[in-house]
């Protein structure tokens, strides 16, 4: 029971008991002495002595208790509280050892223990911070790496929960509900092919094996070509990486082209066949009957119209379907200027229109550099003037100079040359063909230029938009066990 009382209370009780015991002993001694003396007239003297002695004893004990309490018990309590505070919370700072000056080595020992505890705690915090930073760096690297990947990438746990996805994957999976971390993959994809592939790879037991599958989304009926690889993990069924590619668009494009080709062939075959038949039955050596002449004219008109239509559609489709990356007009112009100046040519540039060009910037810069070099070497002097104008729905790169006109024959010769020793297979003509365009000279009154039309679209810049997150990983330590390194 005494263990439940506080230290100070226990010490108080000890001193109280001591005082009580001393008073009882004094009283007993005085009573015994009075009885032995046997003089009733000395009673008041004994009482006086007893009271005085009792008060002195009480005062002494109280004083000693007070000294004990202030210099021993209370400091012990305070030290204990300070140590407990440092053990259970984030309290730092030095302890007040002055209060425990009568406790010998206890205060320094407590201080040392507290310091050691703080040191350990700091070391642990630093280790945690280092590990958190390392994981955050790895996460950023992974996000940056996978955000530029054009295919959808998903990391899933062994229980088919989504642990990671990039923006292309979100686009492929998302229908009415956007994908999210910790959601089940089969909320977005039909499970059969994925489960079978997962089981096959687990049974194969080969860490390098991959499984190619065709799966469909639950929402929009998109057909996705997917590749699955397992990821080693700690315990439980292994997770996996799923790369997704939408083949729906490819299939649609191919189907559209096949359909267009069928229509084209049909539109050409019919009038051609009809004309062959008509010519086949023409009476030789006789005038063409009026009905047959009319029929032949109709078929030729139809054939002519079909060829013109198909040519126009082909022209439009070819320009739209160019597999070229977008590049800002300003960046392209700056690259061209840098190339020309790198060749020792003086260039003045005008501000480029805010356009997004669909082009192979590398090849176009090489082409302009090649032409600038040839112009300078053949008597068409710098400074050159370089600009990128908006021209209706498209744009034109214009390389200008003051001086004699450039003949088309000379230009055609330059365009047939490789663009450089490191580009032996790329000529100006091949670059123009890849961009479905051409290049020609224009000029009046001594101001000459080379004009290069390119496909472009207006560059829409949204002000103050937050940076787009292109990949999504769970944040915080411990969300997914050890980091996944790809």
């Amino acid at each position, binding site marked *: 029971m005494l263990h439940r009382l506080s230290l100070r209370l226990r010490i108080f009780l000890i001193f109280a008991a001591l005082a009580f015991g001393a008073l009882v002993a004094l009283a007993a001694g005085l009573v015994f002495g009075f009885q032995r003396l046997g003089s009733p007239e000395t009673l008041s003297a004994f009482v006086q002595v007893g009271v005085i002695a009792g008060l002195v004893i009480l005062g002494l004990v109280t004083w000693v208790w007070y000294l004990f309490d202030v210099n021993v018990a209370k400091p012990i309590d305070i030290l204990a509280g300070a140590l407990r505070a440092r053990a259970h919370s984030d309290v730092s700072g030095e302890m007040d050892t002055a209060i425990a000056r009568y406790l010998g080595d206890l205060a320094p020992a407590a201080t040392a223990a507290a310091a050691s505890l703080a040191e350990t705690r700091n070391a642990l915090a630093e280790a945690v911070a280092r590990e958190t930073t390392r994981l955050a760096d790895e996460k950023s690297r992974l996000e940056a790496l996978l955000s530029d990947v054009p295919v959808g990438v998903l990391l899933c746990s062994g229980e088919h929960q989504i642990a990671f996805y990039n923006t292309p994957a979100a686009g492929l999976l998302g229908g009415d509900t956007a994908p999210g971390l910790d959601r089940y993959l089969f909320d977005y994809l039909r499970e059969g092919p994925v489960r079978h592939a997962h089981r096959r790879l687990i049974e194969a037991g080969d860490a390098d094996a991959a499984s190619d599958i065709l799966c469909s989304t639950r929402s929009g009926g998109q057909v996705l070509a997917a590749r699955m690889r397992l990821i080693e993990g700690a315990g439980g069924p292994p997770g996996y990486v799923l790369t997704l590619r939408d083949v729906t668009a490819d299939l649609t494009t191919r189907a559209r082209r096949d359909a267009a080709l069928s229509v084209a062939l049909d539109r050409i075959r019919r009038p051609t066949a009809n004309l062959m038949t008509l010519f086949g039955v023409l009476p030789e050596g006789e005038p063409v009957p009026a009905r047959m002449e009319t029929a032949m004219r109709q078929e030729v008109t139809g*054939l002519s119209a079909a060829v*013109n239509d198909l*040519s126009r559609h082909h022209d439009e489709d070819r320009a739209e379907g160019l597999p070229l990356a977008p590049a800002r007009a300003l960046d392209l112009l700056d690259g061209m200027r840098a190339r020309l100046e790198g060749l020792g040519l003086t260039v003045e540039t005008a501000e480029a229109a805010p356009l997004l060009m669909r082009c192979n910037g590398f090849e176009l810069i090489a082409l302009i550099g090649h032409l600038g070099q040839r112009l300078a070497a053949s008597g068409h002097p710098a400074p050159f003037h370089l600009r990128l104008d908006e021209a209706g729905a498209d744009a034109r790169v214009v390389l200008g100079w003051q001086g004699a006109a450039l*003949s088309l024959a000379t230009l055609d010769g330059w365009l047939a040359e490789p663009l450089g020793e490191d580009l032996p297979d790329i000529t100006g003509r091949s670059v123009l063909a890849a961009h*479905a*365009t051409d290049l*020609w000279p*224009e000029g009046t009154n001594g101001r000459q230029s080379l*004009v290069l039309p390119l496909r472009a679209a207006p560059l829409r810049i949204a002000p103050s938009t937050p940076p787009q997150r292109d990949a999504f990983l769970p944040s915080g330590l411990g969300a997914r066990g050890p980091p996944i390194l790809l």
Partner: protein
Amino acid sequence: MAEDGRKHRILVVEDEDNIAIALDFLMTREGYAHDRVASGAEAMPRIRETHPDLVLLDVMLPEVSGYEICQSVRLDPALADVKILMMTARGSAIERQKGIALGADGFISKPFELKELRQEVRRLLQGEG
């Protein structure tokens, strides 16, 4: 008729014989004086020699392209009044732009309706009148 009362002179620069036959019939029926060369190399000497009112110029020619011939005509101040109507079997928008930029007065894609060609020729020739 030209301003001086003579027939309009048209030079056909076309390497494909069948088209040339059709154009020959058409030019005759329209009442134009016409001539034909079948290669690009012959075109400029003939143009300088005969100074036609209009050149029907095919783009894809052997030896010298129609574009080069068009540029050469436009670079010669003495031939400034010669109209040029370019013809091409490919006829993309870019080719059209290039032809017009090099100085062609008109551009027509094959296969064309002869009615369309007739109208275009009249438009260009009457532009001088």
